[in-house]
């Protein structure tokens, strides 16, 4: 088991003929992901190292039976690409594009909710998702993800930051702890998938025994997750929140990472998570150490 994707997931890459799409699409395929097609308007009928390219998502889905899409197109084209995938019936859409205007994101999110409730969007501005050994969609280096181990305790990871996602994977790999699925939800103000969506799935996933959550300043997603954890998550968790020392009113690299009007601080988020029973580390390594202790205690 894993969440959202598994070894049967068939992926098309929107923007496969572009630099990013080709590089990461081929890497995902090399990892073992079923990358079955690509979409680039006007390039239908060609191929990228044997992967067929189609003009539209609808054609690609009809020809390949794909149920997931990996979007690697520039910000201007990303909104339309997401909605095209949804309209073609794609169940799971991963969008790594950074720099989409917030107005577009809000419109796309609410359009999906209303018109395409069966499509889940991951991202934008996210590293993607990896279920080690089964499926890797996005830009995560598959080598740093420890395979889940049968008969042992495995961990699910959910994170707002790309590099801290890799850091978390690496912390677990160094300790030999297997990962069920690692989800990067992205650092933008309106993520398609939030912490709660992932926590719910991890709680239900029999392969996931414990969860690491990595948040950062800005918004209230961590506080809302804490409420959800209190009521619904019985699996043990460790967490880390980045941005304790971030100055107010500044966007810290991610469009969504901003403390405004005294709200969205790291301290507030850590307090909320601690109150929900989550073990909160002061840095990513400490969150890894705490997880190692958790795994030891439940093994």
């Amino acid at each position: 088991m894993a969440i959202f994707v598994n070894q049967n997931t068939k992926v098309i890459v929107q923007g496969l003929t572009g630099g990013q799409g080709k590089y990461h699409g081929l890497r995902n395929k090399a990892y073992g992901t079923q990358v079955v097609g690509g979409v680039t308007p006007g390039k239908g009928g060609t191929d990228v190292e044997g992967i067929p390219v189609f003009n539209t998502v609808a054609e690609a889905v009809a020809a390949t039976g794909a149920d997931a899409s990996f979007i690697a197109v520039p910000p201007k084209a990303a909104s339309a690409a997401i909605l095209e995938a949804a309209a073609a019936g794609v169940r799971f859409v991963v969008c790594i594009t950074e720099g989409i205007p917030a107005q577009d994101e809000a419109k796309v999110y609410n359009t999906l909710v209303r018109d395409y409730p069966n499509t889940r969007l991951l991202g934008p501005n996210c590293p993607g998702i990896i279920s080690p050994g089964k499926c890797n969609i996005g830009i995560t280096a598959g080598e740093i993800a420890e395979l889940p181990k049968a008969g042992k305790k495995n961990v699910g990871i959910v994170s707002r930051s790309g590099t801290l996602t890799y850091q978390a994977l690496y912390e677990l790999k160094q300790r030999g702890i297997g990962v069920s699925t690692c989800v990067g939800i992205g650092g933008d103000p309106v993520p398609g998938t939030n912490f709660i969506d992932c926590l719910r799935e991890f709680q239900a996933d029999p392969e996931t025994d414990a969860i690491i959550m990595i948040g950062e300043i800005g918004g209230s997603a961590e506080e809302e997750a804490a409420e959800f954890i209190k009521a619904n998550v019985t699996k043990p968790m460790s967490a880390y929140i980045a941005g304790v020392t971030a100055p107010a009113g500044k966007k810290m690299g991610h469009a969504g990472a901003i403390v405004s009007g005294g709200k969205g601080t790291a301290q507030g988020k850590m307090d909320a998570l601690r109150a929900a029973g989550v073990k909160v580390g002061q840095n990513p390594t400490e969150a890894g150490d705490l997880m190692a202790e958790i795994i030891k205690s439940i093994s």
Partner: protein
Amino acid sequence: MDLFEYQGKQYFARYDIPVSPGGAADTVDEAVKVADKAGYPVVVKAQVQVGGRGKAGGIKLANNAEETRFHANNILGMDIKGHVVKRLWVEHASDIAEEYYASFTLDRAAKKHLLMLSAQGGVDIEEVAEKDPDAIVKLHIDPVDGLSAAVARKAAVDAKIPEKALEGVASILVQLYRCFTEGDCDLAEINPLILKPTGEVHALDAKVSLDNNASFRHPEWEEYRATEELDAREQLARTHDLQYIGLDGTVGIIANGAGLAMSTLDVVNQVGGNAANFLDIGGGANADVMAAALEVINFDQNVSSIFINIFGGITRGEEVAKGIVEALSRVDLRAPIVIRLDGTNAEQGREILKNAGIPESKLVSKPTMLEAARAAVALSNGK
């Protein structure tokens, strides 16, 4: 990107939101010229991006050219909480019957647009929210539906805007919403939104924050960029296209990824140091980017040690190391570097750094984030 009041008003005007006749002025003579055109009395307002301008003496009423000259002369060059006034906005002074408040933002939790409207304007809205929360109407707007005139009117009624101002307020709300959405604002706020004794409603102030991600479709933002309040370090970083925020500590920070960069500041702080900056060089850390980053850090006179924190995900450790070695050959640094290189092929990367012949007084490698932070802070404090 936060706009100055005068820019906000000019931006509002693009979306047909009524503002007072007036103009920007950089000199006393210009201020008088604008005042003559706007018609006396006028208000002379300091253009700084900080609250409390009025209290600091940065907003004055002038009844004639002489008074305008006097106030403009005083306000230009004035220091308001560390912001030096370089520009004025001079506008015709409005008679005010009533003051309201209106703003649009994105409510991240609800994932909808949020209208906040109150009949109690002209004061700090946070205070109103605290003392009399019922005085603020909060209305969520589905971005797909937008805001209709009917819904805007109902919000105004709910906010207890008096009958005589209803149509004026409702119509400004629709225009302000258009400015917020089509104009790609993170925030569009009018405080106060005034009712004049003559019955017209208009914007007496403008607070606008633009979404930088949308700049590709707003060539008109170029002029705002030119006046953005950046310190010299941030200006330099911008010329190199780096994600840099200047801080006031002594440990220069370079990290790949926004989350890791934030985390690096935190860890430096935990071990008793203070970061001089936030700098995210992104996923790939090639020599050009690294050299540019080091150049910007080196420009900061407060920096007494540099902490490079790289986690190789896609970027492999040996490539990062080669980039650093090459960058060091191009930039002559004042401060020593502590590097923590981890992730994919990190060992090979560390090997490259070790064999590059860089003296230990210039570059130290540490295996973990925490150890590297300690070393960087020790070097920084020892100076």
